């Protein structure tokens, strides 16, 4: 059976250990040299970066997240042993793991390291599709001739290089499509290398729960539950037509995934679909002034990101989470798309003013969706708001000042609320 040493990258065949360096860190699979779609997922990325930069943290539980009221964005493996998971509210994480060291995320630094990892991946193939700062799909089909090695060797080399040069470890999932590659990368963490071959796909999926599919959240899960679908085996009993009729396009996708089929390509050019920012408050608030301040800051962040990407949106979205954790979203379609913070803020504010009841909120988010090019945006001023043109001119001027003297060089009073 084809095998590969993960330490010295020597391919070999039957021996239990690497014949060259005697390492036991070996990956072995019948289809090892044939598979080319991979998913790379860094291991506890933010926490690993912090531990790398501060060795004193080495064996301590580390949680990256915002403040007491935020959520966990990453927990290191020590904290995970105590049951801490990402997206868990911070108070709950602290209950499970009271001695955790909490660190505020340093996004700028993470982005730099992510960029370095991306460069390493792009040296292997142009078909790299980042999902976030710390994970990406890679398609290495047809690169064996170029590199002189099959994809498995190159991928093994990639995580080794990440560890040696950046001090960050990642896990690789190798398979014949994106869905299975993503599933595989989670099988052998940390610093793992897992393979799901074509031959074993059906047997592998059988008893697995459908919620392991990326995109099946709580809502889809409960709809599936009502249809009596829990595992992939349950899905296999359904006809394509019935699944589509009941679950729409999601049903079609489930039908194929259950058979281990996923035709999506690894594409480096997946367009951005929306831009949004949200914040969880230090304490719940119903104070309209404070909420207004948050509205403005979120609108400005969204506008900054849209401007940086030369994008604009046709739909403004307002998202709120109440103190009781119920989620409210409101959206408004614009005739004239925008990337101007002032317009995003005013639309979001109008949506906010239309909410029926005033209550305490714990989270507020503002977003732009249905994106288009900035050329198509902010072209048709509002007849009933003749000052809008002057306000957006002022905003453009402010942007130029901030570009030259830093983001805090000039602020709206509203931003200080």
């Amino acid at each position: 059976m084809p095998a590969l040493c993960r330490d010295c990258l020597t391919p070999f065949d039957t021996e239990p250990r690497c014949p060259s360096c005697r390492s036991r860190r070996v990956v072995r699979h019948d289809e090892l040299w044939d598979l080319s779609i991979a998913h790379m997922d860094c291991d506890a990325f933010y926490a690993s970066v912090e531990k790398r930069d501060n060795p004193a943290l080495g064996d301590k539980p580390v949680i990256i997240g915002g403040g007491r009221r935020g959520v966990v964005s990453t927990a290191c493996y020590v904290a995970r042993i105590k049951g801490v998971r990402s997206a868990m509210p911070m108070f709950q994480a602290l209950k499970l793991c009271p001695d955790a060291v909490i660190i505020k995320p340093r996004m700028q630094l993470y982005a730099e390291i992510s960029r370095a990892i991306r460069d390493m991946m792009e040296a292997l193939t142009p078909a790299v599709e980042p999902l976030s700062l710390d994970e990406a799909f890679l398609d290495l089909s047809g690169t064996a001739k170029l590199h002189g090695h099959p994809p498995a060797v190159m991928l093994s080399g990639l995580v080794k290089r990440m560890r040696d040069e950046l001090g960050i470890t990642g896990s690789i999932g190798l398979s014949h499509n994106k869905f299975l590659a993503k599933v595989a990368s989670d099988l052998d963490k940390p610093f793992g290398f897992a393979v799901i071959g074509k031959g074993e796909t059906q047997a592998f999926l059988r008893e697995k729960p459908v919620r392991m599919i990326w995109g099946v959240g709580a809502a889809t899960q409960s709809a599936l539950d009502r249809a009596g679908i829990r595992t992939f085996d349950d899905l296999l009993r359904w006809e394509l037509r019935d699944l589509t009729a009941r679950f729409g396009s999601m049903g079609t996708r489930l039908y194929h995934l259950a058979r281990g089929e996923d035709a999506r390509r690894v594409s480096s050019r997946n367009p951005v679909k929306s831009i949004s920012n949200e914040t969880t408050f230090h304490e719940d608030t119903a104070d309209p002034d404070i909420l207004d301040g948050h509205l403005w800051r979120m609108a400005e962040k969204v506008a900054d990101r849209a401007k940086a990407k030369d994008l604009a949106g046709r739909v403004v979205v307002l998202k709120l989470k109440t103190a009781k954790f119920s989620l409210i979203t409101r959206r408004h379609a614009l005739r004239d798309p925008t990337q101007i913070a002032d317009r995003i803020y005013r639309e979001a504010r109008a949506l906010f003013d239309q909410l029926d009841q005033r209550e305490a909120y714990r989270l507020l988010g503002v977003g732009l969706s249905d994106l288009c090019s900035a050329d198509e945006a902010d072209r048709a001023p509002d007849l009933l708001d003749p000052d809008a043109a002057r306000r957006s001119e002022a905003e453009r001027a402010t942007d130029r000042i901030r570009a030259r003297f830093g983001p805090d060089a000039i602020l709206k009073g509203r931003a200080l609320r």
Partner: protein
Amino acid sequence: MKVSMERAALLKAVSQAQSVVERRNTIPILANVLIEAEGDTGQFRATDLDIEVVDKAPAQVERAGATTVSAVTLHEIVRKLPDGALVTLTDDSATGRLTVEAGRSNFSLATLPKEDFPVMASSEYASNFSIKAAALRRLFDKSKFAISTEETRYYLNGVYMHVSEAADGRVLRCVATDGHRLARIDTDLPAGAEDMPGVIVPRKTVGELRKLLDDDDMDIAVSVSETKVRFATPDITLTSKVIDGTFPDYTRVIPQANTKRLEVDASEFAKAVDRVSTVSSERSRAVKLQLDEDRLILSVNAPDSGAAEEELAVAYGDERLEIGFNAKYLLEIASQVDRENAVFMFNSAGDPTLMREGSDESAVYVVMPMRV
């Protein structure tokens, strides 16, 4: 109740009723029409709680009474009956059914008690006047295209009907705008309307009202209060709540000092705009107008799909001007012109543009340019 009516009269009354009831109803009684038979009339009443319409039609009443049935079902039945049929409606309170008989057709419909039907509270109207259907039709027909559908600015979801001061005296005026274009239509102030409070007539009411206005010389009785408006012909009474909000001060939006004057045949202009905008695949198709001495070049340049250009002979004597508009808005205002040439008054490429028909100041349109 037992009442017989000629099919055509019944169809007219029921079709008005069924268009008022909401298609998706959570309150069952609101899907029904209230039928009341007394003397020599059958009366049909329907409501969506914002609008109430009452239709009267001549009928042979054998036994007076009242009941309610599904407006949509009754309408469908009557529509499918042969022309000229005599339709008999019989209410059987024992079974709770309404029988509809015509020739050899026989239907039995479920009813709901008439006591459950919500009748709109009558109110005091501050102002009552009468106006010809043709004049009222012009006010609303020419303004309704500019009504906004935006929910955040709900006070724009209707036509603002009010009394205003025009160049030659006071007028009854309708204004609608969605922030991109605006229509302001005037008519002579009818006697009795002087103290009318300004009201925002909702979009749906404007649509229902239109069905009352087909006969030019019909006198329409209009009653207005702060919260309600009522339009009545001898047969039909349409009562509607008005939008509870303040219409923005539109007067400062209408440009007073635009000097660059373009005169163009409206239908030629509209056709040319329609033709050149074909190449654009954008959602808001932008058309560029280049104006020079007696010459107008319309052009569209869509990098992804193509370009188009067309030249029109026009009357224009001012300095060169380039200005862009949403093609749809230009088409809509140009189609309001039906007798004379369209006259556009421009200022600059960033300022609102005014359009009217010849020198007629009683119908004025404003459209906001867009950057091209």
